[in-house]
C-alpha cells in the first residue's frame, strides 16, 4: 500500500483504504496515504477529484463509508482552510482571530504575524484584509499551536501568481524553521511540485504517488492532466534537475525567472 508500510518513522496521520460516499456517489475510493514527520506532501488532482473531501476525511469532518483514519498520539495539527468567510456581521480584528480557539499572548500573536510577514495588521478587521494577507493570517493562526502537521487546503485560491508563489515559499520556510510536516492540496502544478517531497495524484482514487519527478513522468498523471501541463512539467524538471534545457512549451512559463531552484516562488 503506498505510503503506509515500510516506513521507518511512524506517520503523523494516515488514511487506510478510505472510501467516502455522498448520496450514492463514491467520491473517494480506497484511498491510502500517510504523512511522516517533516515532509511536504502535496495532493494534486483536477476539480472534482475529491481533494478537499480527502482533507475533510482526514480531519474527521465527513463520515467514512469504509476504511480508517489514524493520527499519531497527541498530534498537534494546524489547519488552513481553503477559504474562510468572515461574515461582515461579525467584527473581528486579526489579533482577536489569532486567539481562537485558544487564547494566546500578545507577544506570541505578534511573533506569529511577523513569521508570516504581516507584522502590522493586528488591529485590522479580518473582513478588510487582502487575499494574500488573509491567507497569511490563517497560516499564522495555524502556527500558534506549534503544529507537528500543517494541513492546507488550496491555500492560494484567489491569490495572483506572485502572491501564490510567495505563499508557497513561506510554507517551505516555515517547514524549514519549525520542522512541521505539511500536507497540502493543490491544482496548480509547477509551483507546488518543486516544493514537495512527495506528490499524490488523486482522481477519486490514488492514481500515482511518489517523488515529484516520478509522478510527473507517470502515464496516469499525464492522462489526468493532459497536454495543458506540458509547460508546467518542463518548468518543474528544469528547476529540480538544474538542467538548462529550454523545453518550455507553455506561455506562462515566461513569468518565472530561472535563477535557482525555487526562484519561481520568489
Amino acid at each position: 500500500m503506498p505510503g503506509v508500510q515500510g516506513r521507518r518513522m511512524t506517520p503523523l496521520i494516515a488514511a487506510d483504504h478510505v472510501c467516502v460516499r455522498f448520496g450514492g456517489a463514491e467520491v473517494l475510493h480506497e484511498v491510502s496515504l500517510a504523512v511522516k514527520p517533516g515532509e511536504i506532501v502535496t495532493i494534486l488532482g483536477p476539480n472534482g477529484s475529491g481533494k478537499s473531501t480527502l482533507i475533510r476525511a482526514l480531519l474527521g469532518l465527513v463520515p467514512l463509508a469504509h476504511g480508517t483514519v489514524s493520527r499519531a498520539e497527541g498530534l498537534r495539527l494546524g489547519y488552513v482552510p481553503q477559504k474562510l468567510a468572515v461574515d461582515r456581521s461579525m467584527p473581528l480584528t486579526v489579533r482577536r482571530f489569532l486567539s481562537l480557539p485558544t487564547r494566546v499572548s500578545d507577544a506570541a500573536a505578534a511573533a506569529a504575524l511577523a513569521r508570516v510577514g504581516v507584522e502590522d495588521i493586528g488591529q485590522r478587521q479580518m473582513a478588510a484584509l487582502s487575499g494574500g494577507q488573509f491567507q497569511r493570517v490563517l497560516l499564522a493562526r495555524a502556527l500558534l499551536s506549534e503544529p507537528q502537521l500543517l494541513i492546507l487546503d488550496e491555500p492560494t485560491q484567489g491569490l495572483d501568481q506572485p502572491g501564490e508563489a510567495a505563499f508557497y515559499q513561506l510554507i517551505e520556510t516555515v517547514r524549514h524553521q519549525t520542522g512541521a510536516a505539511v500536507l497540502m492540496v493543490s491544482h496548480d502544478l509547477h509551483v507546488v511540485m518543486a516544493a514537495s517531497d512527495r506528490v499524490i495524484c488523486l482522481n477519486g482514487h490514488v492514481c500515482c504517488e511518489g517523488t515529484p519527478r516520478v509522478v510527473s513522468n507517470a502515464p496516469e498523471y499525464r492522462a489526468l492532466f493532459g497536454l495543458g501541463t506540458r509547460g508546467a512539467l518542463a518548468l518543474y524538471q528544469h528547476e529540480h534537475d538544474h538542467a538548462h534545457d529550454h523545453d518550455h512549451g507553455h506561455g506562462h512559463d515566461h513569468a518565472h525567472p530561472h535563477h535557482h531552484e525555487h526562484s519561481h516562488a520568489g
Partner: protein
Amino acid sequence: MLDDFTTRALLAGIGLAVATGPLGSFVVWRRMAYFGDATAHAAILGVALALAFQLPLALGVLGVALAMALTVSTLAAKGWAMDTTLGVLAHSALAFGLVAISFVPGVRTDLSAYLFGDILVVSRGDLALIWGGAALVLALLVWRWQALLTATLSEELAHAAGLNPNRERLVLTVALALVVAVALKVVGALLIAAMLIIPAAAARALARTPEAMAALATGIGGLAAFLGLRLSLWQDTDAGPSIVASAAVIFALAAVAGQLRRG
C-alpha cells in the same frame, strides 16, 4: 425599591438585555434570525399547554420552545431548505398556539399579554425568574465563548481544533429556548426575536471585536428597555412594542454613526 412597578419593569428589561445581548450577537453572526422567530412563536403553544395542564407557565414555554429549537436545529443539520422550513414552522407554531389557546377558558382576554408582553405587571417572582434565566444563559455563553466563536466562524476550524460544532450549536439552541421563556413576560412572543436581533445589529456598527459587540448589545438592549418604558408611561403605549421601537431608533442612529465613522 422593588415595590415600585416601574422599577420592577426596568429591572426585568435589563435582565432580558443581559441575555439577549450576547445571544443576539450569535443570532446575527450565524444568521439565525428566523430560527429565533420560530422558537419564540412556539412559546404561545407552550402557554396553551401550560394553562391546559395547569403547569407553571415558564415550564410549558421552556419545554415547547426547547422542542421547537431542537427540531429546527436537527432539520438544519440534515440539510433541509431552512428558509422554507423555518417559515412553515414559525407560523405554524404561532397558529397552532393561538388555536390551542382558544380552548383554554378565560384566556382570550389575556392573549395580548402573551403576544406583546406585560412588563408593567412583573412580580418579584417573575423578576427572579427573568434574572435567574438570564444569568443561566450568560453563564452558558461565557463558559463556551471561545468554542462558540470558533464554531461560528468556521465549523471546519472548530473541528480541526478538536471542538465539536454540534455541541456548540446545542448550547445556542438551549440558550435560545431559555431566552424565550425569560422574554415572554417582557416583550411577548411576537417581539422576542426583535430583542435578539435589533440591539446586536445596532452594536455591530460600533464594535471592533465580538466581545465589544456583545457588551454593547446588552447596553443598547437595556437603554431600549429604559426608553421604551418611559414612552409607555408617558404616552400610555404598550410597553413591549415601545421597547422594541426604541431599540429600532437606536439601531438607525448607530447605523448612521457607523457610516459616518467609516467615512
